[in-house]
């Protein structure tokens, strides 16, 4: 790496300032405020706040409704992460093997990623619409009367399908470029050493893709926990009622619909800790089994 010499020692900090400002204003400051307000009971009309110590945390963690949502969030995150990674990888492997017209395949597969989450939720909602949704009709064909928005299980199913569908292109891009970055000769050597292409995939290609897969694992867990907000919002339309929601949506509901700023802040701090711990665990236990070339 080339070492650049600056004439003034302040100049490098000046260059960093815009980025630092963005991080501080949009990340650290809200985090600090969230931690701060999680210790207060806020008046719903904004007339003042009372310090309550850990009451907000205790109240949240003892709330059976909160625990049920946490359980659903765990299942939701696991399923969304698994299926979006698996399907993204499957499509990437298949697209990588296509020789003729592969640009068309890639563009079509990637284009879904350009759709904004709420729009994706809206499209997903239409897929599962009671009257016009093709998925509902297909399900009906197999004798499954789907009632998205009314039945807890059906809504959860639709949410997971839409969230996975939205995330596949992202994983697809990374897996595809990962596959194309593998040295051709290693794959050819494997073709000479191993007849079964499935076995070849799991013994040579997948281990070499592991760094990409690990990166995507972390990104996808974060996606399932946070970025599915738009999809869930469109699906449940502010009225969670009997419908499944994830922790992040609960934060929003309590904070902005229930005006319980303190409780909502406590929840978001808990969520922050969960994600932090999860990421540390992933690095501790998965990353060391990965070979970086």
């Amino acid at each position, binding site marked *: 790496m080339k070492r650049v010499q600056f004439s003034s020692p302040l100049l490098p900090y000046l260059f960093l300032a815009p980025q630092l400002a963005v991080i501080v204003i949009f990340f650290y400051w809200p985090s600090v405020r969230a931690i701060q307000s999680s210790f207060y009971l806020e008046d719903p009309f904004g007339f003042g706040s009372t310090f309550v110590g850990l009451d907000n945390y205790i109240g949240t963690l003892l709330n059976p409704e909160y625990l049920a949502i946490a359980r659903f969030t765990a299942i939701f995150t696991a399923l969304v992460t698994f299926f979006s990674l698996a399907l993204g990888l499957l499509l990437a492997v298949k697209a990588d093997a296509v020789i003729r017209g592969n640009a068309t395949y890639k563009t079509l597969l990637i284009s879904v990623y350009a759709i904004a989450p709420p729009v994706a939720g809206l499209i997903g909602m239409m897929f599962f619409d009671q009257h016009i949704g093709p998925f509902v009709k297909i399900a009906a064909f197999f004798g499954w009367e789907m009632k998205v928005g009314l039945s807890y299980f059906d809504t959860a199913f639709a949410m997971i399908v839409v969230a996975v569908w939205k995330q596949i292109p992202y994983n697809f891009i990374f897996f595809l470029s990962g596959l194309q970055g593998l*040295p051709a*000769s*290693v794959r*050819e*050597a*494997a*073709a*000479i*050493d*191993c*007849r*079964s292409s499935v*076995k070849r995939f799991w*013994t*040579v290609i997948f*281990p*070499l893709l*592991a760094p990409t897969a690990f990166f995507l694992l972390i990104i996808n867990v974060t996606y399932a926990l946070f970025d599915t907000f738009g999809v869930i919002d469109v699906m449940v339309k502010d009225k969670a009622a009997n419908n499944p929601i994830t922790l992040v949506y609960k934060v929003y509901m309590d904070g902005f619909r229930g005006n319980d700023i303190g409780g909502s802040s406590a929840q978001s701090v808990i969520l922050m800790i969960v994600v932090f711990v999860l990421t540390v665990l992933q690095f501790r236990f998965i990353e060391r089994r990965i*070979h970086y*070339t």
Partner: protein
Amino acid sequence: MATIEIDKVSKIYHGGVPAVSEVDIQIDDGEFIVLVGPSGCGKSTLLRMVAGLETISSGTVKISGRVVNDVEPADRDIAMVFQNYALYPHMSVRENLAYGLKNRRTPKNEIEARVAEAARMLELGPYLDRKPRALSGGQRQRVAMGRAIVRHPSAFLFDEPLSNLDAKLRVSMRGEIKRLQRRVGTTSLYVTHDQLEAMTLADRLVVLNGGRIEQIGRPLDVYHAPASTFVASFIGSPAMNLVQGELHGSRLAIGPALIDLGQAVPTQGAVTVGFRAEDLQVATGGAAAHADTLPLSVDYVEELGSQRLVHGTVGDQAVTVALSSDAPLSGEMQVAVPLGRLHFFDAGTGRRLAWSTAETHRTTTTANLLETAR
């Protein structure tokens, strides 16, 4: 052990010009064949068609008498050594060596024995538990060789295996490859663009140009009787001098010089004349009776230590002379051409023109000598 028969094999990429056209090569059991040519001559494509990594557009490839055109690479019973080694980076050296055997359901103790044997042969013992990234270039190359050897395949295919090594290592690995191939006696097909590698390794070499075979032959036969100007300029270092001449009767005119051939001449009129730099000598007062001289104006001299290369012009044509390092130098020199070592090529097609009985006699003698040397 196996033979490889390449019969009228062509490779045409969709709609383009053929990369390899109608190549025929018969490889005997245990033979070391080197495919040599400049980049883009189709040598790697041909090798990859034998390996099964490229489809064959037309013609057939047989390994041990079996047509393998539609056989998967893994089922062709071949092993390949790649230019960039193509080791599996996530596996240890031991796992790299064992991978191909494991997938063929070789018994465990058999795998261990073969890995140990290859490790001993290639002196890889201390590195068996290392990952490839912890090895040097030469060691990686040896692992790649080992991966081929443990398989006990019918044939080894080498795709420029030494190109990524530095010059010194290349020479020692070259010797090692030759020694190993002699020892295990496996039929080998080796691709290189380095004519020196080709000359030193090959039992027979195949010179390719533009997807076609220019010449197949034993290294010394190719060296002494190149079939075309292309082969003449490609094999041997420094490259053979090729100059335009005119034949009138038994006289050959090269620029200002007139040489009396004094025997049967191959043709009349324009001709390309070839002679090797090392066959030329400085003409002393009493030049050899049957050799005439060329006037050489010297441009520059390259000192190689063991010899010096004198670059100059005869008339307006470039000529290089290899002289012993103590040979006297001057700006204008007379160099003697031994008549028996002149090569004639058609001025239009560049194909070799046979011209004297003496010449054919001499090449067969070297061939015989080579045979007895083996």
